[in-house]
């Protein structure tokens, strides 16, 4: 649960000021971006996601590094991605 997974913002959801649709390793899920209040976020930006919340905006390079690091974690990362796949944030 301590992992921060990179995701690419697909769309900021117009009907809820705190939600965004992101692509996390090919899976599209809604996340909360309320902790990045005041940060300029647009489709195509990368964020580090922790328990369904964007923690920080990062560049594509940092996102690639974080992802590659997570891939070395084996089961822990597989479990986390499975948890993300079952997530449905409103």
């Amino acid at each position, binding site marked *: *649960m*301590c*992992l*921060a997974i990179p995701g690419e913002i697909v769309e900021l959801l117009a009907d809820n000021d*705190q939600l965004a649709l992101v692509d996390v390793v090919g899976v599209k899920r809604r996340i*909360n971006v*309320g*902790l*990045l*209040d*005041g940060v300029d976020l647009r489709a195509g930006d990368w964020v*580090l996601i*922790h*328990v*369904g*919340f964007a*923690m*920080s905006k*990062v*560049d*594509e*390079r*940092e996102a*690639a*590094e*974080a992802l*590659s*690091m997570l891939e*070395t*974690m*084996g*089961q*822990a990362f597989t*479990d*986390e991605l499975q*948890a*993300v796949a*079952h*997530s*449905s*944030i*409103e």
Partner: protein
Amino acid sequence: MRFVDEFRDPDLAEMLGARITALCEPGRHYKIMEVCGGHTHTIYRYGVQDYLPDDIELVHGPGCPVCVIPMGRVDDAIAIAERADVILTCFGDMMRVPGGNGSFVDATARGADIRMVYSPLDALRIARQNPDREVVFYAIGFETTAPSTALTVMRAKAAGIRNFSVFCNHVTIIPAIKAILDSPDLRLDAFIGPGHVSTVIGCRPYEFIARDHGKPLVCAGFEPLDLLQSVFMIMTQFAEGRSEVENQYGRVVRWDGNLTALKVLADVFALRPYFEWRGLGSISHSALRMSDRYGDFDAELRFKVPGVRVADPKACQCGEVLKGVLKPWECKVFGTACTPEMPIGTCMVSSEGACAAYYNFGQYAKQRVHLEV
């Protein structure tokens, strides 16, 4: 993946290792503690210690939130979950943490409704979908995770969702570091500061460590070269007679942290006078409860919680491992009575626990070095 290669480049690692070695004062032994479970993982996964001279010892600290949950807090939550009207929700890592009366997995087998969630917001959705049930979120984590719980509770309040509450076990990193600095068991020279926690709290809260205790602290990223670079920055401080807080992970961590996150933390939570940590005992002002303004969402107030206190198992030496006094493999039950499949102690449960990280990767790192020699 062209970006990544340079962060794992063995030649660069060798070069940094040589520069670090050159900074060592002859005859001096340096103990550097990393307080973040993610760093512990990288150290074992990539054999970071192998690039360092023998005089520099990396010591693992209490930075795994699953590992510091005392058994009584598991038993208390099970007591709530055994009520027929309750759905208890938690992160997957918590399911196998042993309490005095078994784990959440055992409680589920006895009929309790305990569900794994990815996010506290998933717990809130379950509350929405089950208006006739009480949905309790078992919150764990340092300052990295606590703002997520806080925003979730704020949303619950705004939406008027009454059947949702939080069993709060959020802990704060600074008092834990203070407790370790005050511990007579251990002489530390410097700290590698946590990555994700510092994203929230920034670098300022660590300044007393450098100023009052004379120990450098460098906030670090999670790549093997990030950690080597941080050790290099610490050793440079020693060589130049400095003791400061520095930020190696500037590409993510801001000096002042995340002000929005800090604001919601201050709004939703209040400091507990003390909190019991597994292995470390009671530490004052080291954990969060719901603030009075959000008291309606406090599961401990909503349900009669037994307030169970259970001594840590005698055979288990998680406390010594969490304080860095023992290495995982020096624990009496490591890898024999205590394994990731059948954990006795919490350090073996979470993949970020020092014992599980060493069990899964440590031996491989040693083999790899052996092959290279």
